[in-house]
């Protein structure tokens, strides 16, 4: 993918150097079978269906999408917790797609994961000390007599009291458990951390603590994050670049600010507009998508979003699959009829225009109360 510079637009995200992680046309199908003894193969769940992705050193790449879009499968494929059906996975330029678990080991030191559920991802019968020390033990990175000191140092680093070394997971709250998960991921001093919904199980006031911790650690250890979440607000806060996935495919890739201000794909736009904003005076027009995400067993033809797309034009959208096309610097969207800039009056766009805040809000109010079906005000900013 080449990045085409456009004169007028904002800054391009830093995507220099070799990507630390690169996915090339990655597919993961899960077979669907029927029958108990003679299992007949009747179809496949297309969990990830041709994904290209690059993760550059030092960046945070956000991965968003609704449930079933393949976010978590992508994380597991990168971690090689699952094998890909098709395509290649590279780590720092080396093809790791077909490595055996033994050959994979050196890469695991560089690549760690933080899981979603801090209650399920810690062994309840082990002490915190031994949970955090386990990666060191397996990889033999730290001599046994030094492990305790290192573990306590890690505990201090993630904001846990090192004296709690001998306690068990049930003695900790959700936020503290997630800190334990982060400490374990850091134990091998990895370069990349894949965080799969790291805060979605936590209370709002505690979420912020863990997000701040992840940011601090990134600055301190120059970490690269693949940050997966369904909460677009959290992803915006954390990410330099964001990939929006829909039914196993990337539909839009862009720098965080570009995506939030100038979404090109109607799905990204609908997803953004659906997020409630905690400010009563900043309410916007909402695009309410009809129906649910279609089944990944038999995804729609052409553009996978066409049955729910408010802008779909037939027959093109239902027949021809759109490819990722460059728009602004670093922005790619897979849509035959991408949205024009300012097609949506977002809160930020209105805010950037200063005095327009009021009028934008008013405009959205009037369209709302009049109950017109036109969910999007197409007015360009004048």
């Amino acid at each position, binding site marked *: 993918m080449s990045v085409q510079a456009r004169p007028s637009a904002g800054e391009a995200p830093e995507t220099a150097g070799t990507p630390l992680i690169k996915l090339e046309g990655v597919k993961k199908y899960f077979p669907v079978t029927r029958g108990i003894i003679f299992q007949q193969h009747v179809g496949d769940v297309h969990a990830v269906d041709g994904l290209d992705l690059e993760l550059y050193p030092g960046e945070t790449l956000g991965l968003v999408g609704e449930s079933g879009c393949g976010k978590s499968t992508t994380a597991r494929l990168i971690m090689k917790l699952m094998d890909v059906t098709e395509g290649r996975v590279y780590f720092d330029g080396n093809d790791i797609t077909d490595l055996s678990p033994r050959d994979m080991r050196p890469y695991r030191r560089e690549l760690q994961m933080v899981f979603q559920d801090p209650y399920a991802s810690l062994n309840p019968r082990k002490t915190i000390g031994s949970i955090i020390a386990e990666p060191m033990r397996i990889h033999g990175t730290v001599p046994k007599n030094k492990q305790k000191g290192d573990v306590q140092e890690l505990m201090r680093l993630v904001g846990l009291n090192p004296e709690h070394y001998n306690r068990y997971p049930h003695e900790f709250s959700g936020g503290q458990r997630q800190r334990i998960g982060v400490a374990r991921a850091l134990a091998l001093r990895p370069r990349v951390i894949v965080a799969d919904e790291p805060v979605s199980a936590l*209370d*709002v*006031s505690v*979420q912020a603590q863990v997000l701040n911790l992840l940011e601090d650690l990134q600055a301190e250890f120059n970490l690269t994050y693949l940050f997966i979440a369904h909460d677009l607000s959290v992803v915006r*806060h954390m990410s330099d670049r964001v990939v929006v996935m829909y039914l196993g495919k990337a539909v839009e890739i862009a720098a965080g600010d570009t995506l939030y201000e100038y979404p090109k794909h109607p799905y990204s736009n609908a997803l953004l507009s*659906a997020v*409630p904003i905690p400010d009563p005076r900043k309410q916007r027009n909402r695009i309410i998508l009809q129906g649910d995400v279609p089944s990944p067993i038999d995804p729609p033809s052409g553009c996978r979003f066409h049955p729910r797309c408010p802008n779909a034009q037939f027959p093109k959208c239902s027949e021809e699959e759109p490819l990722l096309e460059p728009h602004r610097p670093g922005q790619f969207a897979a849509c035959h009829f991408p949205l024009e800039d300012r097609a949506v009056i977002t809160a930020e766009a209105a805010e950037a225009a200063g005095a327009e805040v009021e009028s934008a809000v008013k405009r959205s109010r009037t369209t709302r109360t009049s109950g017109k079906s036109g969910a999007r005000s197409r007015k360009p900013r004048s």
Partner: protein
Amino acid sequence: MTVEITSPEPDGDTLLSVRDLKVHFDTSDGVVKAVDGVSFDLAKGETLGVVGESGSGKSVSFMTIMGLITRKQAHIEGEVVFRGQNVLDMPADEMRSIRGSGMAMIFQDPISSLHPLYKVGWQIVEAIQAHEEVEKKVAWERAVEALERVGIPNAPQRARQYPHEFSGGMLQRAMIAMALVLNPDLLIADEPTTALDVTVQAQILSLIDRLQQEFRMAVVLVTHDLGVIAEHADNVNVMYAGKLVERGNRDQTYYDSHHPYTWGLLQSISRLDEKQERLRPIKGGPPSLINVPKGCSFHPRCPYRFDPCDKVVPELVEEEFGHSSACHLSIEEKKRIFASEVVVSS
């Protein structure tokens, strides 16, 4: 607590009035004070948003109001007056007649709220027949109609399907259909969209909005999402550790909040509409309800605590019309801190 709470009432008269409600559970570890003295009023047609973290008592208080937690399971004190009757002292069969046609509740997880082995339509029929003497056939027609009303396509066929054949959003619609089939005056929605995707959440919330206007019912929206409250609620109750710490209308809560806990919540959320440099979390975690901190239960996490906070429990006091908070800081002090340190809107 003997605080008079006069809330701004959109429709005039009060539908639900809760006074000093306490729900305590006896456990082997001690008494869990899940709800500890909550008072508020709810007017007809009002939308009340209830925010709080897990364990703040928001679900327990409304389950008690619904009669789903009874004196058999917990030690309950106080008064819950619904349409002029105290429902806490009501015999079970009378309470049953209020549930359904008076108030109805929908829950976070629709798949576990429906019976997996019965068709969705029959479960709604069952709800109708439990409250009204109607023939099955008539009830079935009403069930299908209810499913249509909540936007389920092909309702006659869908009514013959089982819950596992529905998606999460469709199931939540079916739950709403079941709750509304008897035209209740009050719908209690306990985290109705937490288990759903954001695009489906938008569908469900706009559906609740539309039905509320159609049926002129009051809605209680229990959630931890301040965004949802900002868009849908008239009044907001903020709960912390079993107590109501702030109560006001929506604008008062977002632009002139009087409680440090609400400030902390507003500051700690990541926002889609602004680029934030750094989040400002509330330090520490929610307290144990068995061993609630002395004085103000928020004081260990509060950056503004001073002398009386760890000794005296602050009362919920109405400081402005319809706006009450339970905090020892003076109103001037609160306004100053809020204006200078808590930035909500630019």
